[in-house]
């Protein structure tokens, strides 16, 4: 039984996004105020016009108070949601369903993460008290498991494999250089990426997404109301979210060259949106490039490339800004940065800009249908979100 979907029933009528990066001078509350007021302004609404809020954050606060307190939201429902690195997308999904149901007319999805206050390198998650047996692996190590498995399965020698990963990071930095809100706004030579200090072999520091602070927000309404707020809204074609049974670490049948959760959520989203050939039909995609091998595998799981051929598409520039299917035109997690709770909404922010012709130096020509993909967890044990959005109904 697949999800029924809410194709063209909900529209985004305003968005806001802070610059991502090391905001030593701003706390989570500052970032929330910025993103929320950016979104109010974008939609031309007053805070009193928004009926309900979904706040996504993995660790920068608990409960709706994390948002209602800094914004002084006046006695309205604010729900804090968390779904690991897919938290931002989860908040959007909840807000969309809330207005689609008719329970509310205007809802805000907002996500935030303040990572740079921890004093640690990389992302830190705390576990509930446990028996001391779960593997204590860092995120880059968990995602690096994909690399040797993929290289071996498709006959890439490690040098060639490293070239492919390097080119993915290079492409995302190149795109980020055209984005004034990105954490890293510089093109990086392939040699620098290739020779960056190792974090989890074969991944170097330049294969990892930016550890970043930031917030992003979207205001959603029912599609029939969209033009009350703006001339060129974007429409939700599909929202799919799945949590996997986490069989990868348990079952030898899982081979670490795919995310079955992504395959399932993509299939569901394409069915909702009526997409039959994503490689041809999708104009642009923002995918969860937490580490370079993730993006490589995602091309295949999302149906952009045939199994075993994504690496060739990468080398041929298929996913470049000028390519047939630009992926992460805003720089992605790699270059825009990855403040966990904000990232899913940041991906949607790029859809918002591109579909409305507001993406500046990285503007694509006439994008019609866009995809965002957001993932949380690790290979074989994760949650996955896929959305399809468009700038026209139908």
């Amino acid at each position, binding site marked *: 039984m697949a999800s029924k979907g809410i194709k063209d029933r909900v529209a985004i009528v305003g968005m806001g996004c802070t610059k991502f990066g090391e905001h030593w001078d701003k706390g989570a509350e500052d970032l929330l105020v910025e993103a929320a007021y950016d979104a109010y302004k974008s939609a031309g609404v007053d805070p009193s016009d928004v009926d309900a809020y979904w706040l996504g954050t993995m660790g920068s606060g608990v409960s709706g108070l994390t948002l209602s307190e800094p914004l002084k939201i006046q006695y309205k429902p604010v729900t804090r949601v968390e779904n690991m690195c897919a938290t931002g997308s989860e908040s959007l999904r909840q807000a969309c369903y809330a207005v689609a149901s008719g329970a509310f007319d205007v809802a805000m999805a907002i996500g935030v993460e303040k990572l740079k206050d921890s*004093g*640690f*390198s*990389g992302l*830190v998650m*705390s*576990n509930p*008290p*446990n*028996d*001391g*047996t779960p*593997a*204590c*692996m*860092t995120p*880059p*190590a*968990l995602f*690096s*498991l*994909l690399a*040797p*498995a993929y290289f*071996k399965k498709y006959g890439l020698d490690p040098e060639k494999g490293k070239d492919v990963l390097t080119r993915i990071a290079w492409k995302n930095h190149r795109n980020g250089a055209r984005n004034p809100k990105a954490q890293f706004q510089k093109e990086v030579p392939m040699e620098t990426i290739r020779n960056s200090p*190792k*974090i*989890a*072999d074969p991944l170097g520091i330049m294969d990892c997404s930016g550890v970043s602070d930031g917030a992003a927000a979207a205001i959603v309404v029912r599609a029939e109301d969209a033009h009350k707020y703006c001339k060129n809204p974007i429409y939700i074609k599909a929202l799919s979210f799945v949590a996997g*049974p986490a*069989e990868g*670490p*348990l*079952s*030898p049948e*899982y*081979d*670490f060259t795919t995310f079955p959760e992504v395959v399932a959520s993509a299939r569901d989203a394409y069915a909702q949106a009526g997409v039959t050939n994503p490689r041809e039909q999708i104009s642009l995609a923002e995918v969860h490039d937490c580490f370079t091998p993730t993006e490589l595998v995602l091309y295949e799981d999302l149906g952009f490339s045939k199994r075993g051929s994504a690496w060739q598409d990468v080398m041929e520039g298929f996913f470049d800004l000028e390519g047939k299917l630009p992926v992460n035109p805003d720089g992605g997690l790699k270059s825009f940065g990855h403040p966990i709770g904000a990232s899913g909404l940041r991906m949607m922010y790029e859809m918002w800009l591109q579909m409305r012709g507001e993406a500046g130096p990285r503007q694509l020509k006439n994008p019609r249908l866009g995809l965002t993909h957001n993932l949380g967890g690790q290979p074989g044990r994760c949650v996955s979100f896929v959305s399809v959005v468009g700038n026209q109904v139908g």
Partner: protein
Amino acid sequence: MAGIVSYGSYIPYRRLKRAAIAAVLGVPATRGERAVASFDEDSVSMAVEALRDALKTAPGATVRSLTFGTTTPPYAEKLNAALVGAGARLPAEIRASDSTGSIRAGLSAMLQAAESAAASGGHAAVALADCRLGAPEGKLEQSGGDGAAAFIFGRDNVIAEIEASASLTREYLDSWRAPGERFAHSWEERFALTQAYGPFFRKIIQEVLEKAKVAPGDLAKVVLDAPNQRAAEEMLRELKFDPARVADSLALTVGQTGAAHAALMLTAALPSAKPGDRILVVTVGDGADAMVLKATPAIAAFRPVHSVGRMVESKGDVSYANYLKWREILPTEPPRRPDPDRPAAPPMMRAEKWKFGLIGSKCRACGTAQLPPQRVCVKCRAVDQMDPYSFADRHGRVATYAIDRLAFSLNPPTINAVVDYEGGGRFLCEMTDCEPDKVAIGDEVEMTFRRLFTADGVHNYFWKARPRR
């Protein structure tokens, strides 16, 4: 008469060359190398490894007691033997105790276990291990070694029976360490050599040989162990034992492994023992213990799982700098990552068989082996139809791996492997005793009991994979 039914031994993979110590510290080098417990090993984890082997070659044993002997117990308060028993999957219905305080703790525990097995009719297990730590520039740093040995004593299927034993206890000051101190102090060497070791050796050897009605010339092997190698060598010369019958002291390859050492020397000597051979075993230190063993016809068919000879050969070097870091003698800059969380008592107790014994589950409905133990089958999703299934002795192959340079470790980088077991089951775990540039998909691995880390004084023991030894 009770005697040894089975034995196992363990020598850690890492070796520290004595010349490497001398080169850094500028002190005189002694010959050879010493065995070094890896950063994730201690006396408990090594005892588990030796006891697992001893139990494998005593398949019918009904173990009723366990004594863990060591001078370096990981816990000053808390029964270390309970950890050893859990790791070796001994039943709960046993008497268990720690025997410590002196290198004599090992042989004393063996004699007590033999007497207990003789009296009770069941089997008595002894696991002896030590992680000898000497202060930099001191003698013990070079002469000490890390290792373990384990024995199962019983009345039937005995491979070596105890013909006689003797013990001697004297109060004198030789080597001592107060609670909280890392390194032992010792009195002037000449004092113990002339007033303790020599006289004790003479007295105990004479007594035990008289009790056994055995002449020195009738001994096939002599295992003499002393805190000071010189004491044993002087005694061997004095008693004019044929060098061919003197057991290898392991001084050049392993070092003196504290409370485990006489036992380890014995396990090294037993594979060459023939039925009827008599073996003298003596340890001096705070007195002395001695026994005379006689090999039975059953010894001819006995093969240890890992022989000492094989483990002496299976090795990889550790630099002196890494050794100092592993033993936390050299403090290092902490990583910019959070400290690991202390494992919690209730989940550890709930998961005792899993955590300490590596017992997973196997689905009765579809036969799929899986770990950690599951309630809902990963394959057929049958609910609560699981039988316990042990993975501790199963070999596996590396399906993929990660080299984590960011994770907290005393020995970075941390190597993690996805292990697929023969007979089914997959586990994502740490790898140990291997080099990062040597790991490859398809490598064959076996499971080993280790101390992952210590947090808030709680030692977190669990299993890792290592290349087959």
